[in-house]
């Protein structure tokens, strides 16, 4: 078994509801680098002082979340678009 340390977008579901006011793990996100579309729940997430979400197809950083003094910031620089489930 590999010693992979990442989790996936499911783990950020609570934080994303805080920001977007709705469930987002089933939202689809288009990687700005390779153009692949995946549910946010299926993206890889590397947890540290912030959480770094990466495209499972090409590894591009798609979304970064940071919580600093109870303020939550979501960087969306690596997604071309996100589309919540209908």
């Amino acid at each position: 078994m590999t010693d992979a340390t990442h989790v996936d977008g499911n783990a950020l579901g609570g934080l994303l509801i805080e920001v977007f006011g709705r469930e987002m793990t089933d939202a689809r996100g288009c990687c700005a680098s390779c153009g692949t579309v995946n549910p946010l729940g299926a993206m890889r997430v590397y947890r540290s002082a912030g959480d770094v979400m990466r495209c499972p197809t090409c590894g591009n950083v798609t979304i970064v979340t940071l919580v600093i003094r109870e303020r939550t910031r979501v960087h969306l620089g690596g997604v071309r678009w996100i589309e919540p489930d209908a």
Partner: protein
Amino acid sequence: MARTAVLRRLSWTVAEVVDRIDETPRVRSLTLDVPDWPGHLPGHHIDVRVTAEDGYQAGRQYSIATPADGSRVTITVERLDDGEVSPYLTEVLEVGDGIELRGPIGGYFVWEPSRGGPLLLVAGGSGIAPIMAMLRARLQAGIDVPIRMLLSWRSGEDVIYADELNATARDAAGIEITHTFTRSAPDGWTGRTGRLDRHALAELAWAPSERPLAYVCGPTGLVEAVASTLVELGHDPARVLTERFGPTGG
């Protein structure tokens, strides 16, 4: 239900521990009574937060192991000796204590009877929790969605929900449960050993032409290996849903 709960606030609330069950030497299930719980689907998780005296907070996600049951929610927690949260949940919390949580959370890794099947449910270790909620929901609904369940354990003493799984495998029609042991099998075990590799999945998973809906949960290494192998075998990537909980699990 996931679709009706579109716009909402997710608030922290204090739930009460109403039951504890020791599942294995390292795993304990906690049943919680949650005020104003809106109900949940199999596969949903909760965020749990513990706060130290100095204000330091640590949060973790735990899948719900039971189908909707009023205000009751059961989580199954594996104790990680170097963990910040799991030793507290498994060794300190007692019936009557409070625990801070929010939920339900999830929309991707969820199943409800209307999503149909056949279902391929794959879990490594305590990754069985959300899978078990799906199995229990299927049994509770009394529907005939066929299920194949593949469970990977390190050793015999790690098997969670053993009695319930054995009874289900014996009594329930349309449900096949396969255990495999990767380090040491129980004495007298004549079943499968080793990892859920390509050979095992080709034999035990549904044929891709049956278009199973696959849910794979466990340590990241197992989930990556199983999910990518299923796709290599010809399963539709959009029907292989995954939940990874990191290097060790729990």
